[in-house]
C-alpha cells in the first residue's frame, strides 16, 4: 500500500524554485533512498514530508502530499500530530544537552506520559530498538553530549522511536560518522524497515544500494528517475542518472 503519495509538488525559496513538480509514491515498510548532487533539493524535499519546511521563512509550497490518504497541507492538519507520526533524523546528530535518559524520555513526556515506570520502559525499549542499550545502560543519567558521534546518532534514532512514529525521514544520517558507526546505523535501518516506512537521503551510492528498496535520483530540483534500487543502479532509464551514478559528476 502507498503510505506517502506526493503529487506535483513545487517549492519556492522566495523567488527561487527549489523543487519542480515532484511526483512520487512510497510504500509502507519500505526504504526509499534519495540521491543526487549537492544542492539538488533532497533535503528540501524530505523536509516537506513532515512540514519542517514550514519553519523556514519565505517558503512557498504548491501541490499535494498525502500520508495515509490525508493531505498534510490541508488547513485542518494538526502539524504537531503529523510530526509525531513522521519522525526525522538529521545529518548531524543533535541530542539535547540533557542526560541520555532525558533525551529519549523527552518525546513521551511532551506527549503527556508522566508515569515514571512507563517512561523507563519506553526508554529501554527505544534504546534497544536503536541498538544502543548495551552501550549506554550504565550511563543513562550522564550528558548525551559525552557520547561519540555514532552513539549520538543512534540516540537520536532512539529518541525518535520513543514517540512511536510510522515514517522515518533520515537526512544523510551517517555522513558525519566513522565507518564503524556507519555500518551500525545501516544495520539498524535494515532492522527498522520491518516496522517503519523509511526515506533516507544519502550522498553515498553504495549506501543507497545497500540499504534501500527503491532509489530516487534528484537533479537541480527535478526528480529525474525513481525505480527499484538495483534496477536504477544497473539499468538507469535516463542518461543523466547514468552520468551521475558512473561518477561523471557530483
Amino acid at each position, binding site marked *: 500500500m502507498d503510505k506517502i503519495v506526493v503529487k506535483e509538488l513545487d517549492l519556492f525559496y522566495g523567488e527561487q524554485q527549489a523543487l519542480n513538480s515532484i511526483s512520487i509514491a512510497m510504500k509502507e515498510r519500505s526504504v526509499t533512498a534519495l540521491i543526487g548532487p549537492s544542492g539538488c533539493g533532497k533535503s528540501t524535499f524530505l523536509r516537506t514530508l513532515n512540514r519542517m519546511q514550514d519553519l523556514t521563512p519565505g517558503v512557498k509550497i504548491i501541490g499535494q502530499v498525502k500520508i495515509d490518504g490525508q493531505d498534510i497541507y490541508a488547513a485542518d492538519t494538526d502539524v504537531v*500530530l503529523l510530526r509525531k507520526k513522521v519522525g526525522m533524523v538529521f545529518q548531524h546528530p543533535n541530542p539535547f544537552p540533557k542526560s541520555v535518559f532525558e533525551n529519549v524520555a523527552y518525546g513521551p513526556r511532551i506527549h503527556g506520559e508522566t508515569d515514571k515506570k512507563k517512561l523507563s520502559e519506553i526508554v529501554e525499549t527505544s534504546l534497544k530498538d536503536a541498538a544502543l542499550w548495551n552501550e549506554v545502560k550504565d550511563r543513562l543519567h550522564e550528558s548525551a553530549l559525552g557520547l561519540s558521534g555514532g552513539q549520538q546518532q543512534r540516540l537520536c534514532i532512539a529518541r525518535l522511536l520513543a514517540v*512511536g512514529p510510522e515514517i522515518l525521514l533520515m537526512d544523510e544520517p551517517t555522513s558525519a560518522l566513522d565507518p564503524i558507526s556507519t555500518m551500525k546505523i545501516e544495520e539498524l535501518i535494515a532492522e527498522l524497515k520491518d516496522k517503519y516506512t523509511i526515506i533516507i537521503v544519502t550522498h553515498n551510492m553504495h549506501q543507497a544500494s545497500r540499504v534501500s528498496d527503491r532509489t530516487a535520483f534528484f537533479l537541480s530540483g527535478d526528480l529525474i528517475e525513481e525505480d527499484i534500487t538495483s534496477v536504477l543502479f544497473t539499468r538507469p532509464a535516463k542518461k543523466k542518472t547514468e552520468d551521475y551514478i558512473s561518477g561523471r559528476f557530483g
Partner: protein
Amino acid sequence: MPQPTKSWVYYNDRLARYLFISSAVLVSLIILCIIWFVGMQGLSTFREVSFLEFFTSSKWSPDSGQYGALTFIAGSIGTTLIAILLGGPLGLAGAVFLAEIAPPWVRAIMRPATDLFAGIPSVVYGYVGITVIVGFTRKITNSSTGYGMLAAGIVLAIMILPTVISLSEDALRSLPGSYKEASLALGATRWQTIWRILVPAASPGILTAIILAMARAIGETMAVQMVIGNSPRFPDSLGSPTSTLTSNIVMEMGNTPYGSTWNNGLFMMAFILLVIALIMIILVRTASRKGAVR
C-alpha cells in the same frame, strides 16, 4: 502511550504565544509613552519661546526670558566627539587584542574585567573626575579651573570603553574563521590580516559599537555634570566651563517650577536627547543593514 488532550497542549502553546506578543507590544508602547510625555511637555516650551531662538541662540538666561539652547546641544555633541576620539581607538585596540591576540587566560581575565567598568557608578566616575582629571586638564589646557569639555570627554571615554570593547569584540569574533585562514594562507602577517581583512569585514559591527557608545556618552549625566563646569555659554577652550543637555537638566530641574517655561525648556532638552538617541538607532540599523547586503 496515552493520547495527550490535544486542546490543552494547544491552549498552552497559544497562550504563551499571545503572552510573548503582548510583552513585545508593551515594550513598544512604553517607548511611545515616553516620547509622548517628554515630547508634549517639551514642545509646550514653544508656546512662549520661538523655535528659532531655542535652536540657534546660545543665550540661556531664563529669568530674563532668553531661551537659547544651542550651547547645550553643542556641548553634548562636543563632549561626545571627544569621548569617541579618545575612547574609540583605545576600545577598538582592546577589542582586537581580545579577539585576535590575547592568550586565552588573559582574555579570561580581561573580558570580565572590562565589564566591571560598566558596573562602576557614574557618581564615582564624576568624583574621580573632579579630584584627578580636572587637575590634569587644568594643566594641559592652561585654563583657570580645568572644568570643561576635555575633562568630560576623558571621563566619558573611560565610561564607554566597555561598550566599545565588548560589541567590537563580538563583531570580530562573529566573522567566519575562513577570512582569517584565507588571508594567513596567502602569506599575510597577523597584523595585515587584522588590519586589511578582519577590521574592514567587521566594520558594520564596529560602527554599531561606536554609535551605541556615542548614545551612551551623550546620555550620561551625573559624571559629566560634575566636571563640565556648568556655565551656560560657549567655552573659550576645551578647558573652560560649558554645559551639556544632560548636565543642564540636572542642574536646573530641581530648582524650576513644574510647568513653567523654564522647566518645559528642560523637558525640551530631554526630548532632544531622545531624538538624538533615535537618530543614532536609525544610523545603527543602516550600518548593520549595509553590512548584511555586502
